[in-house]
């Protein structure tokens, strides 16, 4: 890893365990993400990669271990040396600096593209409507959708919807962006436009954790590739090492399906 030891990691996950009923999905994940780092998590479906991503902003609670983002323990707080579970409002506050992009886009269908983007800045971050709108127009222009600002999600293609979703996540000026299989629900010819938008963000130094099946994106944009299988991190390192010269049989077996 090229991360220098002096920089305090933005995300610090230690021994993260998570089970759904009897099924143990995460079996002790340790991961540090430095500011500005782009981490791509690869792995077969059911390997726990999406669940881990959702634990980072507490969409799923964890059973054991701890996750810190920007110096705050997610979902919990230390009060007089005792760890106390946070209430809904405090968790909502912690999530303000984490943007997320979903596999199914999840745009608000009753709002136009612009309204989708300005919703959280105005309602959660207390920005003025004018400032939020100006910023939103800039972001929508940046993802190439300046002409679609007044369209409703249903009037946009899947790729356009996902780019609006990316603009929406960027509008809250996140310190960390989470991408949960952002291209898996897209037609193959629409994947490229979303990936190139994401590559731009990576180049601009945004801290990103990306769960994806796009090996090409991992190879080009990732600072580090993490390969997960069966709830464990099997192997991680720079893309040329993990993708180019995988050490583990499971990584090789997974990657061989994409060549």
């Amino acid at each position: 890893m090229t991360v220098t030891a002096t920089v305090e990691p933005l995300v610090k996950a230690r021994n993260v365990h998570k089970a759904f009923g009897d099924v143990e999905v995460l079996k002790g994940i340790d991961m540090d993400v430095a500011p500005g780092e782009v981490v791509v998590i690869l792995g077969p479906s059911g390997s726990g990669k999406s669940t881990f991503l959702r634990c980072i902003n507490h969409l799923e609670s964890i059973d054991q271990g701890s996750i810190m983002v920007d110096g705050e323990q997610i979902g919990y707080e230390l009060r007089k040396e005792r760890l106390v579970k946070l209430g809904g409002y405090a968790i909502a506050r912690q999530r303000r600096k984490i943007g997320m992009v979903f596999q199914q886009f999840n745009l608000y269908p009753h709002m136009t593209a612009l309204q989708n983007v300005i919703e959280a800045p105005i309602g959660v971050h207390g920005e003025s409507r004018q400032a939020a709108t100006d910023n939103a127009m800039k972001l929508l222009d940046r993802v190439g959708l300046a002409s679609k600002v007044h369209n409703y999600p249903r009037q946009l293609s899947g790729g356009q919807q996902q780019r609006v979703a990316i603009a929406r996540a960027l509008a809250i000026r996140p310190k960390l962006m989470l991408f949960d299989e952002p291209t898996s629900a897209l037609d193959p010819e629409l994947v490229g436009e979303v990936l190139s938008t994401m590559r731009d963000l990576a180049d601009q130094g945004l801290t990103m954790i990306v769960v994806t099946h796009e090996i090409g994106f991992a190879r080009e944009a990732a600072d580090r590739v993490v390969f997960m299988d069966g709830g464990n991190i099997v192997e991680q390192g720079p893309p040329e090492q993990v993708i180019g010269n995988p050490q583990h049989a499971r990584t090789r077996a997974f990657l061989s399906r994409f060549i």
Partner: protein
Amino acid sequence: MSALRDGTASPSGAADRTDLRDVAKAHRPFPLGRLILWAVAILIAADFVWIVAGNENFGWPVVAKYFFDPTVLQGLTVTLGLTVVAMTIGIVLGLLLAIARLSQDGLANTVAGLFIWFFRGTPLLVQLIFWYNLSTLFPELSITIPFGPKLVGWDTNSVISPMTAAIVGLALNEAAYMAEIIRGGLLSVDKGQAETAEAFGMTRVRALWRVIIPQAMRSIVPPTGNQLISMIKATSLVSVIAMADLLYSVQSIYNRTFEVVPMLLVAVIWYLLITSVLNVGQSYIERYYSRGDRRSAPRAARDAATEAPATEAPMGPSPTNVPQEAAR
């Protein structure tokens, strides 16, 4: 090819009939059957209207005479007022009950469940009579600390007038039904929406208000329209507790004049007029909440597309220069 076509062509051998012809030039066959059906239907309807209008037993002159009678209009005001107030309280309370029913909190869930169980499970007429006769059960209403001293109290008969009994009875009953309608609507919204709102740091209340409820409205509005129309008619039940609504007022007139049918017709026509107006209102509300559902780009979007230096192809021909609609 032509050999094949000859082989399958009709015995008349008209080869040009099987040629490809542009459907844009197609003619519509003359709708003779439909025209006959329409004519018959109109004939029957006209005959029916003629018979009803000419029947002296309906007493149309009496209907006309009393249609705008002050007593009737007074009753109409009461009916409308009662409907609006009871429905408003019912919707607000119903929303709270629906949220309580869906919450993880066991206490809220149980209380809401019991409320809905009781008020849906007993006849509205019985509930109205109970509220009206509350003083026989509790001669005094008071706010006390449970099992402790009394803080303030009122004489029940001074609090429960026919009006308050009617409002409380109708509103609580309505709340129970609205709670289930709203709960169904909230459940119909994709779970990913609540999750997204959560991930963006919205509080529960804000997520409900801005994201979930506007989407739930699409499935809440039609049954609510139903409820509203039922409510207008249910207000006629309050005539049993001597509340002077529309039905009560026509009854008070025909008790004097014995023109039962004409006076009931006055009430029926008024009820039909109100529900017709409400139907129109409902269709407007439905159209508003399905705005994200339209496939074609909204006008504002098309205007914006032609004004902005488009990175994507503009959606349609440029309309005249309409001022760009501000973001709502």
